[in-house]
């Protein structure tokens, strides 16, 4: 143990993190496997801010041993609070992800997701360079927020657009990206913001992958239902940047959802048909934990019917509208009230003549939306300009551009030859 401690301190002082990793990996079975209590002793003798990399390696190896949950969680919490991020970024970022994953699992096993939320947030704020960076802790944090039902806290993180994914610096893997956007979609479903939920789930579907994964499949099922709730239809095709291996097979594994979306496309489909379909496949939807969403989709089908009526008529008796919706008049009025409250339609009701008047939304309501979209576009343009500048100033790009010029290429190769001959 003392020898290990001394070697760790020496390696860290020299900055030899490769040897540090190897040394800790080799001593795992001897030290941590047989004597898990030595982990605590070792960590106590290593100052966290000076030996952060060592802490990270030790904690990532200790989680495979017989360490107690409470002790391990306390150690990780201390680690997140006091770590020196520059000793983790690019040095042991992959191990950092393992520590975070194990900590999250323990929070779930001990049924204390609330405990992990502030500590994971602390870890995120330390490891990332900018708020636009994705880290392995992002999906774990959102997952715990979901379990603890603290949706607003998750939303605060999700509102930040992710623009940088640097696996070498932060240890982030494609699975982290998939899970982050999948859990993010679930948070927005809970907040009833189906537009944002659809965007998050679509991003999950488009995460880099070489095959269909369980996460992508579940995200696709929720994506179908959220699209039906938000717009009443399922997009014909997935985005072009969605991996082709996913696009080819995903519909085959979610045929029930495709059939359900198909019913929404039919012009004469009724609420009864949709309810019958839902009842027939109830067990399947419940097994996927999508039954509630599917029921909401059935309710939102009414907006399609009202939308079709709105496209044709400028005014219609309330009784006629009730006939088209196949509902009693009082329920139709209540349904219209809900739709108008949620800005789905701009219909107005005249109770004296029992007529429903369909009016176009005021121009001012489009103005705000256009201005918001333009502001988003401005911010995105600034970010792209900055990234473009960063790429142009990078060493790899400059070398590549110089190699395109034959004169420059010849000049550099002659310089190399001169250096070799001097040696």
């Amino acid at each position, binding site marked *: 143990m003392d020898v290990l401690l001394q070697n760790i301190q020496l390696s860290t002082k020299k900055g030899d993190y490769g040897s540090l990793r190897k040394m800790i990996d080799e001593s795992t079975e001897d030290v941590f496997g047989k004597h898990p209590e030595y982990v605590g002793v070792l960590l106590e003798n290593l100052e966290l801010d000076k030996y952060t990399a060592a802490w990270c390696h030790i904690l990532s190896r200790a989680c495979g041993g017989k360490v107690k949950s409470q002790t391990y969680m306390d150690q990780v919490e201390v680690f997140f609070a006091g770590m020196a991020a520059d000793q983790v970024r690019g040095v042991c970022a992959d191990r950092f992800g393992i520590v975070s994953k194990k900590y999250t699992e323990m929070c779930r096993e001990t049924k204390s997701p609330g405990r992990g939320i502030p500590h994971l947030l602390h870890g995120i704020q330390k490891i990332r360079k900018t708020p636009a960076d994705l880290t392995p802790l992002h999906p774990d944090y959102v997952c715990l927020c979901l379990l*603890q039902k*603290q949706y607003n806290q998750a939303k605060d993180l999700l509102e930040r657009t992710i623009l940088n994914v640097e696996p070498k610096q932060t240890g982030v893997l494609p699975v982290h990206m998939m899970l982050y956007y999948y859990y993010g979609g679930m948070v927005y479903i809970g907040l009833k913001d189906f537009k944002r939920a659809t965007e998050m789930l679509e991003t999950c579907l488009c995460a880099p992958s070489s095959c269909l994964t369980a996460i992508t499949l579940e995200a696709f099922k929720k994506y179908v239902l959220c699209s039906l709730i938000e717009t009443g239809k399922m997009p014909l095709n997935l985005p072009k940047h969605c991996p082709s291996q996913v696009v080819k097979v995903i519909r085959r594994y979610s045929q029930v959802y495709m059939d359900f979306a198909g019913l929404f496309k039919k012009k004469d489909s009724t609420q009864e048909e949709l309810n019958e379909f839902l009842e027939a496949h109830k067990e399947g939807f419940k097994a996927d934990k999508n039954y509630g969403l599917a029921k909401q989709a059935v309710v939102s089908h009414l907006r399609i019917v009202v939308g079709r009526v709105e496209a044709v008529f400028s005014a219609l008796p309330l009784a006629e509208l009730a006939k088209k919706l196949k509902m009693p008049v009082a329920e139709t009025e209540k349904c219209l009230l809900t739709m108008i409250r949620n800005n789905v339609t701009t219909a107005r009701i005249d*109770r004296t003549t029992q007529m429903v008047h369909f009016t176009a939304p005021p121009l001012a309501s489009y103005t705000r939306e256009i*201005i918001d979209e*333009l502001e988003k576009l401005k911010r995105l343009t600034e970010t792209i300009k900055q990234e473009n500048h960063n790429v142009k100033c990078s060493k790899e790009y400059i070398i590549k551009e110089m190699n395109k010029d034959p004169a420059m290429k010849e000049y550099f190769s002659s310089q190399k030859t001169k250096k070799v001959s001097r040696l």
Partner: protein
Amino acid sequence: MSDMEIRVFKYVELGSWDKVAREIEEHDSMHYDKPATGAVYAVGMLAYLVCGDLNSARFLYKRLSQSLQRDVDVTAVWKIVKALWNEEMPAAHEALAKHPWAGSFTTLVVALQAEIREKTLTLLRAVYITIPVSEAAQMLCIPREEVIELAKSVNWTHDAATDSFTEPLTRDPSETAKGPQGIEAVNTVVRNALFLEQLAA
């Protein structure tokens, strides 16, 4: 009473509903193993409702342990949340009026009743061209005479023959306008036009 509880009730007195909600969320986040009392959570749920955040009020209730959910004040507020979720305004008003609220709750309850009435009135104005007085009174949960006075204040005409309200012929454009107005609108248009020209160039 803990420091957090003192701060929460102070914010209630000042009418800072969003600070009440934030204080409780921060406490739950940092001290997940030391929950506050049922009264504090009931205040938190009411504060969310006054701010119009029905989802957060629901989630706050679902986070509570079973024993806290059985608290008298929490149960009373949960009835209001359920009524608002099902868009049953008369049931929400009844739940507000029925329970014997005390202390800091009174301020919140009065604010919530006013908020619900304000939103219902806005909805009625958006939806109805004409509406019977009796129905308006039922939806707003106020006596007939009060409804007539309220309708006059928003320029609705009362037709005694049909006993219904009719909206004014010309609506105030600022009510529906969501975009910027006046010089701000000009500035916004110029900025956006310059930006689009730069993109095109």
